């Protein structure tokens, strides 16, 4: 037992969890915590808006595969975090959001900068803590990290009243915590796994659908081993993009609203589908009742509530993806199965290859300028080292990336796929760079989305966290404009950003580097310059405002209804 203030206990507990960085902003209700941070070795990164703090912690968490920490004051500081917390919740990313709260006796009195952040965050977090005494803070922190990082990860809020931060108490730091209502470690049922193997081996047209759970579980090698052993083609969800190398012959890439045409077509032809760490989101599978009507579905997920939530399945396996796949591989090793040699093809694989080749051969861009989104992204892929980390903003830029940027090293791509948060990509890329300073980090952006959190340029420059913003600038909210052109009779409204601001000048105003690229030659130069730069570079690439993203599964439709052009 040691006598500590709540704030000191909090910082000590964070240090014990191995926290090396906090993204935050001070304010009246968290000053005691900041005062303790002053004498801690934890790096503090001062953000310019709390939404970005949560996104940075999220980006850090997705790359490190451990919790990222953000810190805000009460009231508006806390509510500014909400979008970032909801983003992390939808994408199962472990962040610890710490907020200051008004003193205990003021709670419920509508005090200055008071806000019921626990009430607000209950449906967008795995759990919310509001420690009402300094004594329990170490236990709360330990539990928060345990909950955030285990099972299906997700955000946890710790809301600390200011007088609890100041209160001095006899404090103990537990090594282990147990929560009786929470048992995240579920061993996969081996009889279910055996049944799944029988079904997969009996399939004529098997398909794997790999989701974000493969990334979270780090089961890249197991997935590849399984696909290669059974020669099963792999589609991914958008969240799962890059969990399987996209230059692999068995890779078909993402399915969904803006999935590859061949992936959307071929998945509907499968007779057995192995869905791994995926929640069958509407963006991936379209209409729930239409999807997979004629196929048998095996579903592996760590969250029991996901089995049968959106889609009734034939075999459900509850457990960690990596553990489940390892059991599967072990069982398969004892079975006599046909081994495939290179170049050998089943009729299904031949069909898959032909369909893929056909659709890849007819892909064309539809912009009128020399530099189109597709050409720009393909050029970036060509020049960017394979192990670089890529994130995106939300909208057309995101979907063009999904279609045209092949992820080669598994786990090096992420995006706000569930909540679809504009403004996510740039701060998330900063968080990713903090986690992996040794690799290049690129945010493939659009002008509308980048505009939302561009003030993080200050953070990037002053904290020396250089990233590359690859800005496909169509002077508009392009995805919305595309929907208005296609479904609202070209009645475009509220989408024209008119080329303001000038992003080269914006970059320069913050002390970053801005380069405009209007030809393929200028683009190549810009990318090479950015890769050599030790300061953040914004590459502003003006593209045709009328350039659409295709293929496109129109909203409310099924994968079979994917259209290839307007």
């Amino acid at each position: 037992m040691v006598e500590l203030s709540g704030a000191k206990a909090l910082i000590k507990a964070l240090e014990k969890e191995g926290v090396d960085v906090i993204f935050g902003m001070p304010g009246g209700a968290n000053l005691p915590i900041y005062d303790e941070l002053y004498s801690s070795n934890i790096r503090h990164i001062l953000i310019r808006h709390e939404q970005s703090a949560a996104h940075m912690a999220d980006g850090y968490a997705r790359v490190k595969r451990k919790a990222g920490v953000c810190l805000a004051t009460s009231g508006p500081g806390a509510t500014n975090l909400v979008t970032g917390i909801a983003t992390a919740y939808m994408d199962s990313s472990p962040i610890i959001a710490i907020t200051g709260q008004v003193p205990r006796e003021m709670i419920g009195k509508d005090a200055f900068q008071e806000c019921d952040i626990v009430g607000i965050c209950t449906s967008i977090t795995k759990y919310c803590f509001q420690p009402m005494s300094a004594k329990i803070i170490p236990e709360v922190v330990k539990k928060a990290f345990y909950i955030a990082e285990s099972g299906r990860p997700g955000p946890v809020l710790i809301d600390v009243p200011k007088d609890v931060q100041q209160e001095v108490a006899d404090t103990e730091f537990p090594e282990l915590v147990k929560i009786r209502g929470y048992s995240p470690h579920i061993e996969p049922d081996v009889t279910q796994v055996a049944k799944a193997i029988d079904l997969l081996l009996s399939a004529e047209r098997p398909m794997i659908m790999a989701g974000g759970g493969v990334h979270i579980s780090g089961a890249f090698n197991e997935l590849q081993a399984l696909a290669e052993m059974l020669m099963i083609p792999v589609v991914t969800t958008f969240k799962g993009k890059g969990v399987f190398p996209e230059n692999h012959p068995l890779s078909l890439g993402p399915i969904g609203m803006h999935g590859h045409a061949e992936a959307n077509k071929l998945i509907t032809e499968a007779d057995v589908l192995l869905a791994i760490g995926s929640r069958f989101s509407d963006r991936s599978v379209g209409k729930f009742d239409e999807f997979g009507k004629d196929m048998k579905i095996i579903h592996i997920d760590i969250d029991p509530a996901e089995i049968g939530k959106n889609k009734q399945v034939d075999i459900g396996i509850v457990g960690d993806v990596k553990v489940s796949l390892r059991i599967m591989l072990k069982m398969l090793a004892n079975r006599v199965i046909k081994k495939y040699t290179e170049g050998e093809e089943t009729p299904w694989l031949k069909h898959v290859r032909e369909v893929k080749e056909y659709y890849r051969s007819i892909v064309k861009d539809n912009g009128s300028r020399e530099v189109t989104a597709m050409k720009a992204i393909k050029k970036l892929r060509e020049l960017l080292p394979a192990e670089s980390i890529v994130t995106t903003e939300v909208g057309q830029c995101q979907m063009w990336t999904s279609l045209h940027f092949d992820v080669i090293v598994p786990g090096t791509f992420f995006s706000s796929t569930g909540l679809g948060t504009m403004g996510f990509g740039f701060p998330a890329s900063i968080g990713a760079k903090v986690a992996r300073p040794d690799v290049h980090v690129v945010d493939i952006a659009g002008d509308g989305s980048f505009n939302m959190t561009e003030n993080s340029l200050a953070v990037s420059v002053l904290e020396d966290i250089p990233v590359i913003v690859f800005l496909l600038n169509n002077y508009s909210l392009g995805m919305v404009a595309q929907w208005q052109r296609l479904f609202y009779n070209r009645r475009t409204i509220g989408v024209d950003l008119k080329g303001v601001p000038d992003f080269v000048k914006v970059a320069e105003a913050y002390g970053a580097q801005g380069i405009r690229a209007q030809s393929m030659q200028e683009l190549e130069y810009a990318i090479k310059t950015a890769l050599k730069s030790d300061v953040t570079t914004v590459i502003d690439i003006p593209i045709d405002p009328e350039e659409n993203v295709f293929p496109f599964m129109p909203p409310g439709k099924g994968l079979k209804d994917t259209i290839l052009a307007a």
Partner: protein
Amino acid sequence: MGWNIISALVENKPGVLFRVSNMFRARGFNIESLSVGPTEQSDLSRITITINGDEHTVEQLVKQLMKIIDVVNVERLPLDNSVYRELALIKLRVEDPTTRLEVMNLVNVFRGKVVDISKRSMMIEITGTPDKIDAFKSLVEHYGIIQLARTGVCALPRGVIYE
């Protein structure tokens, strides 16, 4: 579609009822009744929920409840092997002695109790399955119900026969 009773053991601490009811709202579960109270363990409460729904809905509700960290255990109670009761207080408009006797007869048949009487009203306490309370209510409705309060269902599974 069927009538289901779900029994959840939860941590007895502030905010838990909010978490549970907030989940029902956020995920669009339309529950029929919810009751909450202490159990044999002082640090646990029992929440009993009744819901009309198809198998898929009820299964999802159980799984989503289990996902809440303060929920320790969730059970679906089999209707044919559980005891479930609800308590209702019904204040009726009764202004003359003959009617009063009539009501008391009905109360006796239903093994209820008259718990309050005034010149113009009678309050009846009745315990039983929701069906029984519905039946009593429909029998006395024509006297005029001034106020009515029901607790929601409280339930436990029966003991095993050869324990």
